[in-house]
């Protein structure tokens, strides 16, 4: 099973240039987990002690406010989840559940940190993508504020 996922990970843009031997080492540093639809993988407020790479299926990132779930985004194969909170040492900022039956690669925090520390190319890629995601979120926040302001005016 891990050979099949090793090949799959080489097709994800974040791991461009990896061979299946290279992605096999990423798999060996973590654990592949299948999760049924509806299963909650991360819970807002929990401590951030692992990072996920989506291998198949779709995950939903959501927060619960006033008894209602507000879906923020979806994560598809190739997406990494939970890396920023783990690197910053802060609790999970949102929850994640499987929207469909899904498979993820789960790296414990120590293993993920070691991957990044040992491999400057990989850390550059993962941090670059994480920061791009943050900048996009900030942009969309600004857009929402502008909209709200024009609606109020």
């Amino acid at each position, binding site marked *: 099973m891990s050979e099949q996922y090793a090949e799959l990970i080489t097709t994800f843009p974040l791991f*461009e*240039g*990896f061979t299946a031997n290279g992605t096999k080492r990423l798999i060996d540093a973590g654990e592949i987990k299948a999760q049924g639809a509806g299963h909650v993988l991360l819970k807002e407020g929990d401590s951030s002690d692992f990072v996920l790479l989506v291998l198949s299926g779709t995950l939903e990132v959501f927060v619960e406010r006033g008894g209602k779930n507000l879906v923020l985004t979806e994560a598809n194969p190739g997406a990494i989840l939970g890396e920023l909170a783990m690197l910053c040492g802060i609790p999970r900022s949102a929850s994640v559940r499987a929207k469909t039956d899904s498979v993820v690669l789960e790296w414990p925090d120590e293993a993920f940190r070691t991957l990044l520390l040992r491999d400057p*190319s990989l850390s550059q890629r993962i941090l670059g993508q994480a920061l791009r995601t943050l900048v996009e979120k900030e942009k969309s926040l600004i857009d929402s504020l502008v909209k709200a302001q024009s609606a109020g005016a």
Partner: protein
Amino acid sequence: MSFLNSLIKDPKYQTTEPRKPEEVGEPDVIISPDTRRENRIPPGQTRTKKWPVLDAHGAPPVDLATWRFEADGLVEQPLEFSLDEFMQLPVVKVYSDFHCVTRWSRLDNIWTGVPTREIARLAGVKPEAKFVVAAAYDYGWTTNVPIEYFLNEDSLFAFLHDGAPIPPEHGGPVRLIIPQLYAWKSAKWVKGVRFLAEDQAGFWEEGGYHMRGNPWTSGDGERFRWS
């Protein structure tokens, strides 16, 4: 004071500007051609006066009594040497710079060791060999190098750096030195080389690092196989 002490404790700290090749003054030293460039620091690199330590797994235990160096693959005569036998081989000195893909360059190094050309000669490398994979003592670590870089006059299996044995953290007892490529191609704790007709990705190359790794080309150097 503690800062000065830390400098004194680091025997590899460079307190002077790098010599020009003509100032080296070592008899019969091979001058690595990149040291003759007007600007010796490749694009995107910064000079360090220290000698930082980077590796995939940390220094492995290497038992000098059982240490072996092997050369095989596309050769007429596979080779195997003990450390004593390896030290009896012809020796050269090379004056070269050292460029790490993590963007530091250490200029002005004198390496002493067995020329790669001598290993290739003794093994009788077949004409169809176009690539070399160097293997190291650290847990199956390898790196791949085009044979023309491996056979450069300034490439060697070094056991001395600036006249002193190479410490374990820097790849001793013997490490490969290929001055004209990024330094990850200069395998620390080298245990052998295999000559191949087809290129075969090594440890970092399997993680998207460049198959050749020339610091002087492609604008910012051949660092990775991704953009």
